[in-house]
């Protein structure tokens, strides 16, 4: 079962002088349990594409199905949790608990079931129960984002779609969020991340898609992405590829610094490396 996008075309403001083609003949398939990255420059159609996954937008032509159902069906909304850019703007509850209970209440759950869902979401993200009595507006930027994700997880989605989840976060909060996503994926939740900068999450991804002006121009594994040549790569991957072309015996498909450190250590031998930075 999966999300299947077939020959989707979408235009904003059709028939006006402000008409803009956002998606052109896009086809892709996202399997259950996968960690998928959808990259592309700003304005390439990424956010428009994901809005088709739970029926917020309907294609001008083509088809989007989720587990065999049309994405426009209301049932799909509880399966596909979606978190947009600047999620903290959507927070409104007086307490974190109230904020997290919003989704389950909308899906018709009652008292103890709601409580169960809220605690499930808090636990899944490693947020303590103490936080549930606090006002979400008084939390730090990173915590607000985690609470916003928990708000979506409380609906127990099978697919979690995140639009630019790392934008505006500092290094500490970035790594907090990446760990949370890794944890969620290991719990069987399909993660779909949309970002104009895929470098931070390439090491986690099973599959990468790249959009350019509304067209899907790349689909493949992170290793294939790294070997493509004309797509933006993380600095560390560029460095490793450069070392490889200069004759060093290192892999070129490395996307994070920890892995690069281990690879260089292997090449140099353990005695040559001092002042280890590995955390």
């Amino acid at each position, binding site marked *: 079962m999966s999300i299947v996008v077939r020959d989707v075309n979408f235009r904003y403001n059709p028939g006006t*002088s402000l008409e803009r083609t956002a998606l052109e003949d896009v086809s892709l398939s996202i399997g259950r349990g996968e960690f998928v990255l959808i990259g592309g420059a700003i304005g390439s159609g990424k956010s428009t594409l994901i809005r088709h996954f739970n029926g917020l937008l309907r294609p001008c032509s083509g088809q989007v199905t989720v587990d065999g159902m049309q994405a426009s069906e209301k049932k799909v*909304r509880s399966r596909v949790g979606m978190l*947009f850019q600047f999620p903290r703007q959507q927070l409104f509850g007086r307490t974190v608990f109230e904020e997290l209970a919003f989704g389950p209440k909308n899906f018709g759950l009652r008292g103890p079931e709601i409580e169960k869902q809220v605690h499930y979401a808090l636990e899944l993200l490693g947020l303590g129960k103490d936080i549930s009595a606090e006002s979400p507006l008084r939390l730090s930027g990173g915590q607000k984002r985690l609470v916003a994700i928990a708000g979506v997880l409380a609906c127990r989605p099978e697919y979690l779609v995140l639009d630019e989840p790392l934008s505006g976060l500092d290094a500490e909060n970035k790594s907090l969020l990446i760990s949370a996503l890794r944890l969620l994926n290991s719990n069987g939740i399909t993660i779909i991340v949309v970002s104009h900068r895929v470098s931070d999450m390439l090491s986690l991804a099973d599959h990468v898609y790249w959009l350019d002006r509304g067209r899907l121009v790349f689909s493949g594994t992170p290793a294939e992405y790294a070997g493509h040549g004309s797509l933006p790569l993380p600095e560390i991957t560029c460095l490793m590829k450069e070392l490889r072309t200069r004759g060093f015996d290192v892999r070129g498909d490395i996307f994070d610094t920890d892995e690069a450190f281990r690879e260089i250590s292997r090449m140099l031998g353990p005695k040559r490396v001092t002042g280890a930075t590995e955390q």
Partner: protein
Amino acid sequence: MSTLLFRYVPGNSFLHMLDPRVKITAMLVASISIFMSSTFREMAAILLVFYLLLLISSVSPRVVFGSLRPMLIFLALIFTLQLFLTGGDPLFSLMGLDATYQGLVKGSLLILRFILLLMFASLLTATTSPSMMTAGIERMLRPLPSRKFGISSFDLATMMFLSLHFVPLLYESFNHLRDSQISRGLDAKKNPARALYSLSVPMIRTAFSSAEDVAVAMESRCYQGHHRSSLHEPQLRKKDLLSLLFFAIVMLLVI
């Protein structure tokens, strides 16, 4: 995301080239005519004038109708209130309230007035760039003795421009927020009170924080309301005045 709400549509039509003061005055003339009209025939004639202006402007009708969409609930509410709360010959009954023929006519005329007003306003914003609009409003307000009250015409024009500029931005923020809450299962039809609360609280916060951001950005770029030059200096030409005169005569003949 892309909204059509009171958007400027760049172009080179006759309407685009007119002085903004002329277009704003014409809008005032149109508003007076719309509120003075009291029959469907007069409304139809104003609609015809609007249609001709739309043809001259080369603006797509969808842009104009795009501005009407968010107002539909408001219009429906006004119509329903008029339909049921106006006394007269009963048409049908609903929950103990009588819908009347007089209410039907009154409600239809009232919402037609609002629709026409919104359409003219939308045409004004579609054919006048924001900077020209500000310059036009400022020139029109300059003769007023507002400085005696501590407000310059520049301040007033900037406030009006920002208000206009914020409408599509806030609408986009609203759409964004609505998508977020719908993704968490919000169904406004099933639970309107919850929808109102979950949308209005973050929306008010967004509006205040955006306004603060703009104020800080303007101040940090040395904004002072006393006197500012304009990028586009509006020039009132003979053809502008003749166009306004012609429009005013047509609207007078219509009502």
